[in-house]
């Protein structure tokens, strides 16, 4: 006489469930006749038969199966309600060899976590989702779920789910099968032995797809909740077979795993140094050593520069160029753009602060040292903010001569016309900067810094437009044209 076990406790479970409370450590916490137990048995059997226990991670959702990590002899993670596919994405991306199983109920997957789930499905993450659909919220005591059948009475639909008021049940498998990424979608039922064996096959197929890295597999299981539906075992099976299956037809909705190549994603990087290099690339500093300091008087104090104009005129990039020039000469700089929602046509302005000291606030609301305006509304708006003895540079093509107090140093530059001659209105901002170079050097810059200003500008423009060679050339041309124009106009005045 020899005895062999044909069907016995699956090896995928722990021999005894030490973490399960209560005196019996051999069975599960589920109610008598629960569908979870049936499915978890199939999963445990499959992971031990496929020999993947060492690399399987089962994600327990929120719901009755929240304690499934008590039972499976593999890795387990408990996640916030509905977030299992998001966590699974992280796990499988950082460790592509792991077999990630997201075990979810209809409240977890179909209601609170639906977007997490559908996005993971659409990305085609290499994981399998086992979706337990029992048409009711089990753990909370039998409220209506997205998958509750039309006419089904629950705690929150005491007259039966009305399609007029609550709509039709959510058909998750059909929705997922309609996406391009998922490779395998099937719906099985945990009712009769025949259906359970079909479900067993589906579990194995989904796991095999995950092992082969074919992508996203999902199996939906129609399961029973005898406690909340107040049915006995026989009536529960009849409910699944006669009421749930007509609404949620069984079968395979999609199986294209054979046509797909295994997924290959960029491997994760764990080296701290490498990550740092990627996130914060080392900038090649041009021109000056880090302890370089300009000698000119003007740089002794914090300088506030305000720029205003129409969006699209290059006001913001002009500000950025000035800020870059400051940065390249070891100043602390801040650049604060402010613009309307429209990309072109609205007014835009930006505030640039250049200082040797730490800059407290990037906002300039009064007392700016230098004002550059490219349109009339900005002139009217910002001229009162200009400090005594401040410098004003404006585009005389578009702006009438301002009426300001005699202490201000005013430069009118025919910027738009000069820029048009060079090729495009786009270069007006570089023309203005050329004017600024002249404006500064005659009053404020020492000879050494005068020469340096042009060089800094060229460095800055290469920094700002690093990938557009022709634009750099034309901008530099515009810069010198602007410079020339101001020098000429000054000579004419004299």
């Amino acid at each position: 006489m020899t005895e062999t076990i044909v069907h016995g406790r699956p090896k995928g479970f722990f021999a005894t469930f030490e973490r399960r409370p209560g005196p019996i450590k051999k069975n599960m916490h589920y109610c008598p006749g629960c569908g979870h137990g049936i499915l978890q048995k199939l999963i445990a059997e499959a992971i031990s038969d496929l020999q993947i226990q060492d690399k399987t991670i089962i994600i327990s959702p929120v719901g009755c199966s929240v304690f499934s990590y008590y039972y499976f002899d593999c890795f387990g993670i408990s996640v916030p309600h509905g977030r299992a596919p998001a966590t699974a994405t992280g796990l499988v991306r950082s460790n592509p060899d792991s077999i990630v199983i997201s075990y979810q109920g209809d409240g977890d997957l179909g209601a609170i976590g639906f977007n997490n789930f559908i996005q993971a499905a659409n990305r085609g993450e290499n994981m399998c989702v086992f979706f337990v659909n029992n048409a009711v919220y089990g753990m909370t005591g039998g409220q209506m779920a997205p998958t509750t059948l039309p006419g089904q009475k629950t705690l929150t639909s005491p007259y039966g789910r009305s399609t007029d008021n609550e709509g039709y049940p959510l058909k998750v498998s059909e929705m997922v099968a309609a996406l391009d990424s998922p490779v395998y979608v099937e719906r099985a039922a945990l009712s009769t032995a025949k259906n359970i064996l079909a479900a067993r096959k589906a579990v194995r197929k989904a796991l095999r797809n995950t092992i082969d890295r074919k992508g996203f597999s999902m199996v939906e299981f129609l399961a029973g909740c005898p406690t909340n539906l107040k049915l006995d075992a026989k009536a529960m099976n009849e409910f699944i077979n006669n009421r749930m299956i007509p609404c949620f037809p069984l079968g395979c909705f999609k199986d294209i795993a054979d046509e797909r190549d295994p997924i290959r994603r960029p491997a994760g990087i764990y080296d701290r140094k490498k990550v740092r290099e990627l996130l914060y690339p080392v900038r090649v500093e041009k021109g000056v050593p880090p302890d370089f300091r300009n000698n000119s008087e003007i740089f002794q104090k914090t300088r506030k520069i305000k720029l205003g104009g129409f969006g699209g005129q290059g006001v913001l990039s002009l500000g950025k160029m000035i800020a870059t020039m400051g940065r390249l000469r070891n100043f602390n700089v801040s650049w604060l753009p402010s613009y309307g929602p429209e990309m072109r046509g609205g007014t835009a302005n930006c505030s640039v602060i250049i200082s040797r000291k730490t800059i407290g606030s990037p906002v300039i609301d009064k007392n700016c040292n230098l004002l550059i305006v490219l349109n009339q509304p900005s002139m009217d708006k910002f001229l009162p903010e200009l400090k005594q003895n401040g410098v004003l540079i404006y585009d005389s093509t578009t702006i009438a001569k301002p009426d300001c107090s005699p202490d201000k140093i005013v430069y009118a530059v025919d910027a738009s016309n000069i820029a048009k001659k060079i090729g495009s209105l786009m270069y007006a901002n570089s023309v203005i900067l050329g004017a600024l170079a002249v404006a500064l050097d005659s009053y404020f810059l020492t000879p050494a810094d005068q020469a340096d200003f042009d060089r800094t500008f060229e460095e800055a423009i290469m920094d700002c437009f690093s990938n557009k060679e022709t634009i750099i050339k034309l901008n530099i041309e515009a810069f010198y044209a602007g410079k020339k124009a101001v020098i000429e106009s000054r000579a004419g005045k004299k």
Partner: protein
Amino acid sequence: MLVQTIMKNKTKQVKYQAVIAADECKGCERCVNACPKSVLQMGREFNFMGFPYAVYVGEGCIGCGACFYTCPEPGAITIVKVTGD
């Protein structure tokens, strides 16, 4: 060769048995409904947790596994193959 094997198996007596762990059973009756040979019944006694539990009548199991797969508990039912000489 095949014939010999079949003959050998025929001479051997093969029996299947459903072994039920009484304390793990919760008395849901799924196995009783699922058994195609109706050799499982609900017992009249209660187990440690106070559930009535299923019992095997002692004869007639064909080892199909229907009760095992329909049972929600991991090890409440074990199907054992008994090979006699």
